[in-house]
């Protein structure tokens, strides 16, 4: 709270400058409500909280926040953040608006169907909240340079896929550097806030790489999706879903040689539905409907406005608190369940110190003669990595790039050179590799940090004793 001396100081300042809390926090200001938190001191606040007009200016003028996803959560997040003092937002989403979005993605109207979500969402929020600048990015998250993500003070995730979360997590964690005592360097920590919903349930979590578990540390929270065995579909169907998947996965290919099934083409969906119906009749199985066919084939997750609102609001509030320090923060995982009454639970998950994504990096020992080509091959066979199609960078310098073709050609000659030479003949260092790995039969792209140590070169003792995988 303001002490007497505070007030004296403020009164003095008021004579020379209008930029003081007492003057600013009047009822007649856009920040009327936020000012209570940003200009007044508190006792249950973050460690570096300094209430001031400067703090508010910092949020408004300098803090850049990235929202990943402009769907059910993304629309809410943009609105919530724009009304929580942030004025510089970016939003990235590769999708276009569909009719089925309109029951919850409140920034979109029927006439917007077909337009890029990121662009419409940004425009709508800017129209209503003056002074806010939102830059839309209508592209895949993998299309952006890694550096793009480093420009933001915090990344807020409104996604519906494990793969996309995993990718952003790997990018944010790749910025993290550790000091010689294996403590994370504060200036390299890129916090994330992640939300997710399904029906009446959802979660919100705070990820501070190096301090709290990252997405990969607790990947078990997202169990892989169960798929039907093909022999069940082909030989012993029992449920409507089995009949639908038979039509979708087996019959389609038999009939349409080479033509890929398009889940967004109503004719294709209708074909699968009819085939499924035929099969169900043949086996005496009830329950095949068009709606179920869509649900099974597209793996539709039911979604409603209220749950998205709850989870996005929790994420936005945490974002405000992390950036400003104006209150304590969630540590570190909140679940919400509204199915039976209302249950909320906060769980403090622990970090996996051997995590290959947020840890100090996978340790790789190499001979000084080993070529870059050899090094890349090793990564594919590495038991913890299994990375293929790898691009390699060292201290921001591209050693080998898979794409675009121009870069590939420019860096191809490095493949036959010794990594030791390419890294400037030092005892070791951190190398970033970007590639794909196969997990649960799904390809995922990811960025990994490797700690390369060259055998028989002096000055590596400290690295040997450091943790890592």
């Amino acid at each position, binding site marked *: 709270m303001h002490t007497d001396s505070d007030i004296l100081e403020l009164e003095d300042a008021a004579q020379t400058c209008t930029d003081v809390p007492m003057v600013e926090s009047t009822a007649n200001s856009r920040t009327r409500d936020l000012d*209570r938190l940003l200009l007044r001191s508190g006792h249950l606040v973050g460690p570096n909280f300094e209430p001031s007009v400067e703090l508010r200016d910092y949020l408004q003028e300098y803090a850049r926040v990235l929202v990943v996803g402009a769907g059910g959560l993304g629309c809410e997040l943009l609105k919530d953040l724009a*009304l929580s003092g942030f004025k510089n937002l970016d939003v990235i989403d590769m999708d276009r608006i569909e009719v089925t979005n309109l029951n*919850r993605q409140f920034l979109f109207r029927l006439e917007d169907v077909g337009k890029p979500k990121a662009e419409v969402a940004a425009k709508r929020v800017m129209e209503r909240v003056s002074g806010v600048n939102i830059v839309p990015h209508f592209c895949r998250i993998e299309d952006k340079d890694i550096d793009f993500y480093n420009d933001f003070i915090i990344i807020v995730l409104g996604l519906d896929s494990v793969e996309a979360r995993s990718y952003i997590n790997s990018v944010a964690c790749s910025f993290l550097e550790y000091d010689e005592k294996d403590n994370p360097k504060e200036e390299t920590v890129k916090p994330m806030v992640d939300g997710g919903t399904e029906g009446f349930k959802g979660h919100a979590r705070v990820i501070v790489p190096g301090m709290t578990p990252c997405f990969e540390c607790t990947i078990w929270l997202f169990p892989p999706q169960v798929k039907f065995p093909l022999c069940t579909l082909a030989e012993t169907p029992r449920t409507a879903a089995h009949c639908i998947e038979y039509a979708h996965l087996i019959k389609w290919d038999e009939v349409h040689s080479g033509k890929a099934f398009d889940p967004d083409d109503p004719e294709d969906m209708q074909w699968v539905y009819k085939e499924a119906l035929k099969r169900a009749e043949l*086996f005496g199985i009830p329950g095949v409907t068009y709606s179920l066919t869509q649900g099974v084939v597209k793996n539709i997750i039911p979604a*409603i406005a209220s749950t998205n609102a709850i989870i996005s609001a929790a994420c936005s*509030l945490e974002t405000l608190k992390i950036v400003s320090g104006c209150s304590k923060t969630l540590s570190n995982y909140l679940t919400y369940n509204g199915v039976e009454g209302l249950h909320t639970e906060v769980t403090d998950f622990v970090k996996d110190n051997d995590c290959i994504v947020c840890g100090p990096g996978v340790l790789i020992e190499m001979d000084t003669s080993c070529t870059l080509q050899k090094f890349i091959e090793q990564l594919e066979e590495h038991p913890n990595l299994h990375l293929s199609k790898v691009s390699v960078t060292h201290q921001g310098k591209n050693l080998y790039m898979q794409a675009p073709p121009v870069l590939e050609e420019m860096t191809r000659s490095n493949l036959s050179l010794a990594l030791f030479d390419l890294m400037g003949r030092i005892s070791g260092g951190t190398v970033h590799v970007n590639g794909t790995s196969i997990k649960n039969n799904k390809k995922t792209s990811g960025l990994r940090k490797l700690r390369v140590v060259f055998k028989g070169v002096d000055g590596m003792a400290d690295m040997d004793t450091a943790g890592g995988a």
Partner: protein
Amino acid sequence: MAEPKIKYDRQLRIWGEQGQAALEKASVCLLNCGPTGSETLKNLVLGGIGSITVVDGSKVEVGDLGNNFMVDETSLGESKAKCVCAFLQELNDAVKATFIEEFPEKLIESNPSFFSQFTLVIATQLVEDKMLKLDRICREANVMIVFARSYGLTGLVRVSVKEHTVIESKPDHFLDDHRLNNPWPELKRFVESIDVNVPDPVAHKHIPYVVILVKMAEEWAQSHGGTLPSTREEKNELKDLLTSRMIGLDEDNYKEAVDAYYKLFSSRGISSDLMQILNDNCAEIDSNSSDFWVMVAALKEFVALEGGGEVPLEGSIPDMTSSTEQYVNLQKVYQAKAEADFLAMEKHVQNSLKKIGRDPNSISKMTIKVFCKNTRKLKVCRYRMIQEEFNSPSLSVLQNYLTDEKYSMAAGFYILLRAVDRFAANYNSFPGQFDGEIDEDISRLKTLAVSLLTDLGCNGSILSEDLIKEICRFGAAELHAVSALIGGIASQEVIKLITKQFTPMIGTFIFNGIDQKSKLMLL
């Protein structure tokens, strides 16, 4: 598919067309359209609620532009209710949206009958004495209320309804009703018709686990004087017996049987939750009874007669490893029993209706069928009047939370949210509303909070000094993110109440925006 059906596809997968129809028939009234109220309504308008009436007497100020998405620069000086209503209408033209430029506090005082036209009232940002009055008005008129309030980094949501009954509560995890340890004659006969020792390995690994378990239980009972295993050793013995019958390592049906063998020991008959409903006074029906209670009365008779201590069979079985033929036939056995139980129940319902002088066909077959499928999941929610809770909250619960390491902050906020209303009644402003008076307000609020605790009988309970200071720091601010969260929760409860599906919250939900350790407290 028609466009509205496509638009609502993702929610129809949750509450179905019945739920959607209930929403589209409902008329909802919102009191005060600050961000908390506006966000609550937004979520309902998107979902296609029938009609909304926005009641607010204030004009849009600059400060509102910073926390309410439904107003913008062009709204300055205009009626807030009108601006919010116009924006909400933009979201969904199927909704009938109207507004009344009037202070809700005035309506509560001068026109209590106004509220009786609505299905449900959403009352936001009301202080204690207005909450109490509105609660009495709506209880009398049999109108549901959801109270919602955002206050700095805290807030509350409270439902108030005399009685809310749910047939389709759709719980997440619920033990299947397979009657494995209590098979009816047709199921027994079906199991007997299958040779579990069939030598053909393909046939052997395609026997449904339900058949395997019923057979095993029978075998065991025959060699153990007609009883099932009761001790842990006996249960393990049965499990070993089960494993010994596997003839290959790839027999998924046996693996499923081992995983599900505990179902053999699930208790027979009626759960204590259901017993409570059957024994409820309302199950003694008269001409004023609702359809729900008429069906409960019928259920009671069914359990005593045809059911032999069991409820009607639900009749569905989950997917399990099996040949198509055996699975489909097993399914038919379950469905036939469910159909027979339904027919018996229908008779009881008709008799019950006759007894109370109603048309015996006034409850549709469809409704009775849904009821039969959900008898084990029925819910009856009754809510204390706000006044009762405020005068005599459950002391032990309150005191437990006040001293609980995880939830003492939420409990503290509960007390302080009430103390700020006493503050407002005494001083005509909320604590910390004006910058210059904060220190004075802290000590005033502390005094009020302590006397409130004493009034409640929580002598000796201490509120953290930091929390009192925080509440004063908040100065009654209505932050957008907190309002969106409170509004989200309120709208979700509204949906559950109107669709009569899922279980609405019972108790007062206190939001803790400091570390998110919020709590639903049944006081």
